[in-house]
């Protein structure tokens, strides 16, 4: 590793901890490298404006974010919650299971964990506390169940992974179904065990008529992921066009059919999404300069040599990568962590011949766990705000739910078939 690269890393970390914006920390650190190595500074613009952000597939990121925000603004969350209450509210743990199922269904429309906590979470926590569930349990399970958001398709994090790792969006979307189900089930088992001692209120088991009726209000919104996946898999549209279709479909659903939001709300959501996504895109733009430096320094080859020389089993190496991502996720947004780490680790994962679709889901899950880990878990802040509990209490209530999710990660590392079985079954 050259002196200039060490300087880049040190400067980047120093600036980051001084609270310089991530994009500026990275770009400034990279400028020092360009100056030392006498690389023309004009190349910064070429890399930033012509690099990762001009990827057409990446355009699906703001579009899915917009579709999720539109769903979140309307009454879809409430409809999904009511549907889940009828169908799983009768099991021991009652609204805890409702919370998990609702998050799983909402994940099929929103694609981010934060949308789940801030939108659906507020409904879930209120209903749970109103029915005698303690705030700690309610907030803990709400934050934990939100991690299925980016796992079950569509997922904005999956788009970012596919762009960086050069993988198929369709495969990653389809591969996310079983892991999403696995996480949901593991949380439900946890709820079932915890609720044994607490005697929480449950609803009546639904009759067949009630079961059929419960589908009516949610069916149009549940069609969103199906339309996206069928369209993409059938070759009707590209992942980016599918995201555009998702936006128009959710807009029509919320404005015309459900009549929850107005055209003005629609415009406001476009504005909010554009502002949010510009922040992520700016980091991707500066990461292009960082990637150039990593490539020039051949850092992946050096790391690869070190990993291969260590004779660690591939699974342990993958778990170590997950730990690094999880650690970084405690301080940074999940997508940012992926943008920073993936260019470095992808050659290692490829050399280990680990399934890249399974790795994608594992990475996304590890990164998104950052929403539920202190000191900067955004989910913890939102949960704390909704319940009025202190940040410490919210953290304490949430951390135990990391266990079932961590178990799921270990299972996927040792049995990547959990992810790859469905994509492998489908024809190319």
């Amino acid at each position, binding site marked *: 590793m050259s002196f200039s690269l060490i300087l880049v890393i040190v400067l980047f970390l120093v600036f980051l901890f001084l609270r310089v*914006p991530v994009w500026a920390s990275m770009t400034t650190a990279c400028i020092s490298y360009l100056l030392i190595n006498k690389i023309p*500074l004009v190349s910064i613009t070429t890399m930033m*404006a012509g690099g990762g952000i001009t990827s057409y597939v990446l355009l699906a990121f703001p579009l899915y974010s917009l579709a999720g925000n539109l769903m979140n603004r309307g009454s879809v969350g409430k409809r999904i919650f009511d549907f889940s209450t009828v169908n799983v509210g009768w099991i021991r743990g009652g609204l805890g299971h409702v919370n998990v199922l609702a998050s799983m269904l909402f994940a099929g429309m929103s694609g981010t964990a934060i949308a789940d906590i801030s939108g659906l979470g507020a409904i879930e926590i209120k209903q749970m506390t109103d029915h005698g569930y303690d705030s700690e349990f309610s907030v803990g399970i709400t934050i934990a169940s939100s991690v299925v958001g980016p796992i079950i398709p569509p997922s904005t994090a999956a788009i970012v992974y596919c762009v960086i790792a050069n993988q198929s969006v369709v495969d990653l979307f389809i591969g996310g179904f079983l892991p999403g189900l696995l996480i949901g089930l593991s949380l439900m088992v946890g709820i079932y065990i915890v609720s044994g001692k607490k005697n929480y209120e449950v609803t009546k088991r639904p009759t067949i008529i009630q079961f059929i009726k419960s589908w009516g209000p949610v069916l149009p919104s549940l069609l969103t992921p199906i339309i996206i996946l069928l369209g993409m898999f059938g070759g009707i549209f590209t992942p980016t066009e599918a*995201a555009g279709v998702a936006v128009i479909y959710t807009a029509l659903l919320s404005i015309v059919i459900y009549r929850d939001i107005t055209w003005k709300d629609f415009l406001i959501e*476009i504005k909010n999404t554009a*502002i949010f996504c510009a922040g992520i895109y700016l980091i991707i733009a500066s990461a292009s300069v960082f990637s150039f430096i990593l490539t020039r320094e051949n850092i992946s080859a050096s790391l690869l040599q070190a990993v291969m020389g260590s004779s660690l089993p591939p699974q342990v190496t993958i778990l170590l990568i997950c730990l690094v991502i999880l650690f970084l996720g405690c301080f940074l947004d999940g997508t940012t962590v992926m943008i920073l780490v993936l260019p470095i680790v992808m050659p290692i994962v490829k050399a280990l011949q680990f399934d890249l679709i399974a790795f994608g889901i594992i990475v996304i899950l590890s990164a998104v766990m950052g929403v539920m880990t202190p000191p900067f878990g955004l989910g913890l802040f939102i949960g704390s705000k909704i319940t009025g509990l202190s940040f410490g209490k919210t953290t304490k209530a949430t951390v135990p739910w990391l266990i079932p999710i961590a178990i799921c990660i270990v299972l996927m590392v040792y049995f990547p078939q959990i992810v790859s079985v469905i994509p492998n079954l489908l024809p190319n």
Partner: protein
Amino acid sequence: MKNLELRKKIVPAVEKSLVAVDTFALAAIVFISIYGVVLRYVFKKPLFWGMELSTSLAVWMTFLISGVNYKRDIHFTVDILYGFLNKKLKFIDDVIVALVTLFCIGVCLYSAIISFVKNYKISMAAMEISVSFTLYLPLILGYISYIFFMVLHFVTKDKEVKQEEV
């Protein structure tokens, strides 16, 4: 006092204009993605410039709003140390952050202007528009707006507070 009133009119106007262009860029991306599908399946006529225009709009969306994001303090940052600092140290940290960011933007702006001038005669592949306008102009405008809002934050804010107190 006159300057203050002028500033109160100009700053929101600049901010609103930048946000409006940003909103338009994302709305246009949505429209183009759907328009492409409709043209392909209904009119059997694929949209050959759609991909290029959408990605160019993404560049506009990204850079143009960077100054506004600074003003609203919504750039992604790590606050782990900042939270422990007292008011005085926070101010010092703010100044350091501003200097680092200013240096970064200064270099990026220089780089963007050089790129704009050098690539002026090069057109995009599908659209007959100069690369300088589609890819490099938003960077220049974005960096200028960033500097504008930074200067405003550090130079005018305290004066305004003092004047209002008077």
